[in-house]
């Protein structure tokens, strides 16, 4: 944990009634850093943001800004401003009134408010719209007014609660770069909640992936994308293809034993703490090299054999659904291969993510074959259910 943390969250727990939403969560954010909280619905990312903002009271733990404990302070005394998912603009006030309201509450003279509102409008490209009501603005303009309202009070920390989710796809791509550029220009510390991994990577210095109220992994976008710390993070970052394998650690390598649908392979450990035994392998569709069954292998790595089941064009690449034994996987290729073609899939070692399968009992996934169903089925409880039914 870095010592020059500007926003420090220590052992934060939050619960609604009997359900625990956040569990002893720790996170440090440096001054001027842009952090994205990334996770699926219900993982606690919005609750964490609301706890930081002061709208949710934690049951335990502390939140400190620049060394000052703010855990019990009301939302307006924390030096933070929140941009809401719904924008939450006041429909009865003009754009200028919306942006200037925080300054009016601070008791600033009218001239000072008008000057600051003018600055903010110019900064966000809202000049000339000051007299309009929010109802007469486009989605992108409303989003900027919400941002302007938060920035007008000059907060130390800007909190963004899925601010782009109500925009249509094209505007979203533009706005995310605008917000990132603005954040860098102002040097403001920002915490951004999103469920969109591309958005998180494009905007943030650091991505914090959350799973069930805990931090699954925190790191730069590259680290999260290329070196996921768990099968969950790998899957969330797009490595949806899953195989159950069996491996043995030998020195700095892990040796994967050959199975009915795949050949043996040597994968460098590369600092990963893997143990011999059942492995969960994850890889992205675009990491696969897809070839006809009899073509000479072009790269080294784990080779799988199977049949093409379906093909669709995604733009840029053809996505093939390939059945490896019982397991369907997706593989991208520049040229399409017809359904029922026998194919070989090669996954380069550096793009093959390996994790030890959590298997407390002997009923774990069979290690010598690919597993019948995708993604979550390696959880021992589900395997047992499947075995019974």
């Amino acid at each position, binding site marked *: 944990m870095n010592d020059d943390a500007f926003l420090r969250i220590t052992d934060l727990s939050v619960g609604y009634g009997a359900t625990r939403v956040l569990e002893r969560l720790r996170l440090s954010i440096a001054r001027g850093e842009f952090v994205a909280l990334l996770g699926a619905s219900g993982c606690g990312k919005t609750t964490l943001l609301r706890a930081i903002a002061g709208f949710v009271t934690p049951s335990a733990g502390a939140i400190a800004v620049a060394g000052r404990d703010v855990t019990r302070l009301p939302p307006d005394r924390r030096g933070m*401003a929140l941009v809401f998912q719904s924008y939450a603009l006041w429909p009865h*006030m003009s754009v200028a009134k919306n942006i200037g309201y*925080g300054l009016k509450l*601070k008791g600033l003279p009218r001239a000072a408010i008008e000057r600051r509102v003018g600055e903010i409008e110019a900064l966000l490209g809202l000049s000339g719209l000051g007299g309009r009501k929010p109802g007469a603005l486009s989605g992108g303009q409303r989003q900027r007014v919400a941002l302007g309202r938060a920035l007008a009070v000059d907060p130390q920390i800007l909190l963004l609660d899925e601010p782009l989710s109500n925009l249509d796809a094209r505007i979203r791509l533009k706005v995310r770069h605008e917000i990132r550029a603005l954040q860098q220009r102002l040097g403001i510390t920002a915490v951004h909640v999103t469920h969109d991994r591309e958005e998180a990577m494009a905007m943030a210095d650091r991505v914090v992936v959350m799973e069930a109220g805990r931090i699954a992994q925190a790191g730069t976008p590259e680290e999260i994308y290329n070196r996921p710390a768990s099968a969950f993070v790998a899957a969330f970052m797009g490595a949806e293809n899953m195989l159950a394998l069996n491996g043995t650690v030998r020195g700095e390598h892990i040796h994967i034993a050959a199975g009915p649908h795949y050949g043996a392979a040597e994968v460098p450990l590369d600092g990963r703490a893997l143990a011999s035994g059942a492995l969960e392998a994850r890889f992205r569709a675009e990491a696969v090299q897809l070839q006809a069954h009899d073509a000479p292998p072009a790269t080294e790595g784990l080779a799988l054999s199977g049949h093409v089941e379906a093909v669709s064009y995604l733009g840029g690449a053809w996505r093939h659904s390939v059945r490896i034994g019982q397991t369907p996987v997706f593989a991208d290729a520049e040229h399409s291969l017809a359904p029922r073609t026998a194919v070989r899939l090669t996954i380069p070692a550096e793009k093959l993510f390996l994790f030890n399968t959590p298997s407390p009992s002997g009923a774990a996934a069979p290690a010598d074959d690919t597993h019948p169903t995708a993604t979550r089925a390696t959880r021992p409880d589900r395997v047992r259910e499947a075995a019974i039914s």
Partner: protein
Amino acid sequence: MPPPLLGLLLVLPALVVVLLLFVVPLGASVAGAFVVGDGVGLGNFVKTFALYTPDIVFTVLIVSLSTALIGTFAIAIGGYLTLGENPRAVAILRWLYRWPMFIPFIVVGQVLRTFLAKNGLMNNVLIAAGLITPLDAASFLDWRGIVIAFVWKQTPFVALLVAGAMASVDRGTIEAARNLGASRARILVEILVPQVATTLMVSLVLSFVTMMSVLSVPLMINAQSPTMITADIAFRINAYGDYGVANALGLVSLAISACAAIVYLRHSVRERT
């Protein structure tokens, strides 16, 4: 049969009922206000204003004051239900505030008559508590009694509509104001009430019109002069069989109600532009 004709046929029963039971009697009343002896004239109105001008003013003042108080209390109740931070107090208030809605006006009048009289419950309690002496005890059975009865009876209705509208306001707009440092009172006045202004106005206009038409409360609480127009209408008909003046008084109260509706319409038009 062409579709427009079929449509007309389908609404015909409802239309006939409205025409026969509502429009025709209303038209007859309005026309009746102008019937003097065998001819037509403004005699009924001359008599009405000569006899009842103080009562008309009294009615307008009473109903306006009651409307203002009802609005204030309804905003306070709705605001507390929406912004209150003590869940138990909010639950109790939510359970309690609607009760007067289910009590008829005549019962309200009767209850308040025994409560507000010179030797009524209110004064007895105040005397027992040592707050006033028996000599200071005064009857509230005058304009104050009517206002208290109206406010007591109509506040829950307006509060119900206002609280419902407040509950459907985007919570984010409240939190955004809190985030910037607004107190609860400022949030209520500057954020919440403007967003429910239309509902507030509609329910206050409805309340105004309802109070204009209540006969039982002025009869029970304040039968002396000046009294409200409804009591005068009843008196003209029951005591004299004078339908002309009664119709003229009815038209006057219709005009007063229309004024309230116009105030509301102008307000809502301004909101929209």
